[in-house]
């Protein structure tokens, strides 16, 4: 146990300890302080760990866990640069979310439960990041899923929240089945589930192995479920039903990051076929997510689709063989998306205070009610717009750097390989344009334009103007937006390759330097296209015909309903039910089945009666007879021997006991007899 081990143990265990303390306590009092303190300790320790690990000290804490046959399983905490980076990212975001939540959730009757879950959520994400054994990763993976289920459905009295929680849980389960299959396949192949052991045993010729292929597909499915890729992405927009800080945590640091992280960890055994698949899923998700964000009115839904789209980018990067850029984007995205969500939470918070009981149908999350909020909430405005700039990928932001690195890899692949990759690159750059468009739209609708609520007739009576949130809320937002500036990642705002994150992680990467400048030009022109269009439509009020025709068109509905994926699932279930019901209506259709079933069951019953029962009976009789024989043997032979032996000893004892004085006189007689015998013997 050296210093680093202790620091890591504190970092990992303090959220769990916090959750335990909160569980044992009864009152809501100071729940936020305890939870935040614990996460704060954890964050400090994580940063220390990060600093030490980044300078080259990998950590390996191993403990024997259980064994299966001859194979020992070790519970191993393994911290390399990748997990140290994500560990500190998760702890910082979680810490800020905790601080923010203490203000946001003020007065909630379930205050304590909320913070307990938040602590456990962070802890389980730590577990995913730091475990070396895939079984352990799987356990924590499930725990992350469970915590998200509890937090999305936090407001149990809201039916929509409960439904959304169930949906998230079930959709994730589908992917998790893939994880399970992958675990079994890997175990069959390597007889171990320890990642470092698998890396050691692995060689490149195994890539053509079917077992490895199935494992790779399973892991991909799992990642698609957690990271909300198409077609599993239906749960993420609905997850908005949970408290907003939770959304920030889910979208930035914990839940959706887990999928990308797993894929990066397992990247070494992903065959090319699977990579092609991952890239396809990622590219389509990036585009579809961005496209669906265009038409939403709920501010949190816009951000949710944006997250789906950004995760698609990460998957795309993994698919083209550049997981390093994916991790880079994951890290930068975590900060600015958390900032955006916390900002959205601040907006919703102050919109809530504007509303009153008369305002039926007023939705504080609807951007149509917002507008010109920059005048009322300047600090939130600054934080939100910096994070938004990072999301668009404007220069001088972290988003620009990571997106640029990612798109460069895609572009390189597209120039070298076939039409398929060119199509994906097109989707990727298209999504960049869409991202710029919806970001500008949100910016205008929320912070510029007219205050929507002021035009609402009913609410004229109770109109209170929105005001800035407290410092516990805007400080985390400002801090997160500060972390979205290029400065923290690389000194030069345009050159990604000098970044300290890049080239330090020991994961594969692509040298995309050759297309770097071209990518910058292309992506900036895409941003200008999308953003410029949005600027013209919203800020300048031009091209309004285009806007109305889009609104009445099919594309708008497709976008608003997220490409009808949800309905597809619903309808397929309904049609199966319909087919089942129609079969019911056909007369006599079932009689044949019934007869067949009765015949089969008769036969089975006969077989059971005659054969199985007979065998069972025979066996029973044999056992009884054998038992009797054993009993006889025991009673007469074993017991008899013991009995006779004791009788013999008894008699022997008697023989010596009798002369020793049953009566005084016989004692004298015996001694006389013996004396005489002695004399007789001596005489002769």
């Amino acid at each position: 146990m050296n210093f680093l081990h202790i620091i890591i143990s504190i970092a990992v265990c303090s959220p769990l300890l916090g959750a335990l303390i909160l569980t044992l306590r009864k009152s809501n009092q100071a729940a936020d302080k305890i939870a935040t303190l614990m996460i704060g300790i954890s964050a400090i320790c994580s940063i220390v760990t990060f600093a030490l690990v980044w300078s080259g000290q990998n950590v390996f804490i191993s403990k024997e866990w259980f064994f299966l046959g001859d194979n020992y399983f070790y519970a191993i905490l393994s911290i390399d640069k990748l997990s140290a980076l994500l560990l500190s990212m998760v702890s910082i975001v979680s810490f800020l979310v905790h601080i923010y939540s203490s203000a946001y959730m003020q007065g909630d009757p379930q205050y304590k439960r909320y913070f307990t879950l938040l602590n456990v959520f962070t802890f389980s994400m730590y577990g995913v990041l730091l475990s070396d054994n895939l079984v352990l990763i799987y356990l924590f993976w499930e725990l992350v899923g469970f915590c998200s289920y509890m937090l999305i459905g936090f407001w149990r009295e809201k039916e929509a929240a409960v439904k959304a929680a169930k949906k998230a849980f079930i959709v994730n389960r589908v992917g998790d089945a893939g994880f399970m299959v992958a675990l079994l396949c890997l175990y069959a192949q390597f007889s171990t589930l320890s990642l470092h052991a698998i890396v050691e045993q692995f060689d490149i010729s195994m890539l053509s192995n079917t077992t490895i292929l199935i494992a790779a597909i399973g892991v991909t499915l799992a990642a698609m479920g957690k990271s909300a890729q198409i077609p599993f992405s239906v749960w993420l927009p609905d997850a908005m039903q949970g408290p907003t800080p939770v959304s920030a945590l889910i979208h930035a640091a914990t839940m959706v990051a887990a999928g990308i992280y797993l894929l990066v960890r397992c990247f070494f055994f992903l065959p090319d076929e699977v990579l092609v698949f991952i890239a396809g899923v990622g590219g389509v998700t990036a585009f579809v997510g961005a496209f669906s964000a265009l038409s939403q009115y709920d501010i949190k839904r816009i951000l949710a689709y944006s997250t789906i789209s950004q995760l698609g980018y990460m998957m795309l990067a993994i698919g083209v063989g550049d997981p390093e850029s994916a991790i880079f984007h994951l890290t930068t995205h975590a900060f600015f998306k958390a900032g955006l969500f916390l900002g959205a939470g601040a907006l919703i918070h102050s919109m809530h205070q504007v509303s009153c009981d008369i305002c039926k149908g007023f939705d504080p999350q609807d951007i149509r009610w917002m507008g010109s909020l920059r005048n009322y909430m300047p600090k939130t405005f600054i934080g939100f717009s910096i994070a938004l700039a990072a999301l668009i990928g404007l220069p001088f932001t972290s988003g620009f750097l990571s997106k640029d690195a990612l798109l460069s890899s895609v572009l390189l692949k597209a120039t070298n390989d076939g039409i398929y990759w060119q199509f994906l690159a097109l989707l990727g750059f298209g999504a960049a344009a869409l991202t710029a468009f919806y970001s500008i739209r949100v910016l205008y609708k929320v912070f510029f334009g007219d205050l929507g609520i002021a035009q609402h007739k009913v609410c004229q009576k109770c109109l209170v103007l929105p005001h800035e949130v407290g410092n516990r809320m805007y400080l985390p937002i400002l801090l997160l937006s500060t972390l979205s500036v290029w400065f923290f990642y690389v000194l030069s705002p345009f050159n990604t390759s000098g970044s300290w994150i890049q080239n330090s992680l020991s994961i594969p990467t692509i040298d995309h330097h050759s297309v770097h400048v071209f990518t910058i030009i292309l992506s900036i022109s895409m941003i200008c296209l999308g953003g410029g269009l949005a600027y013209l439509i919203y800020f300048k009020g031009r091209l309004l015909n285009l806007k109305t025709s889009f609104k009445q068109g099919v594309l708008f509905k497709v976008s608003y309903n997220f490409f009808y994926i949800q309905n597809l699932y619903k309808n397929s279930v309904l049609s199966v039910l319909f087919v089942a019901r129609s079969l019911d209506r056909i007369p006599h259709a079932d009689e044949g089945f019934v007869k067949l079933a009765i015949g089969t069951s008769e036969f089975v019953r006969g077989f059971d009666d005659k054969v199985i029962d007979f065998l069972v009976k025979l066996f029973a009789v044999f056992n009884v007879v054998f038992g009797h024989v054993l009993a006889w043997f025991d009673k007469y032979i074993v017991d008899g021997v013991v009995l006779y032996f004791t009788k013999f000893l008894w008699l022997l004892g008697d023989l010596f006991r009798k002369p020793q004085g049953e009566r005084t006189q016989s004692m004298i007689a015996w001694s006389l007899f013996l004396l005489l015998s002695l004399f007789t013997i001596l005489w002769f």
Partner: protein
Amino acid sequence: MIPFSYYMLGSAFLFSIGLAVALTKRSAIVALMGVELMLNAANINLVAFAQRDASLGEGNVFAVFVIVIAAAEVCVALALIIKLFQYFRSIDLHKINTLKED
């Protein structure tokens, strides 16, 4: 003169009777009487040997000693018997068995 062997035979006869009485009788007093008989048989032997061989003249003195010791022994024995009777309410030797392990 009575032959010497007659004394021996008489003494042996008397000793045997005494032994038999001491071993078989239930009453402690009668058993004590058997012991006295055996002592007297020994006395007859001592006196007879002293008469036959002049060099063993001290035999008579031994006989007197034996008689004195027998008298003392009877005193002690009778005292014991009285005590036993007080304790057991009986002088049946078969019943006096508390020293025996049950």
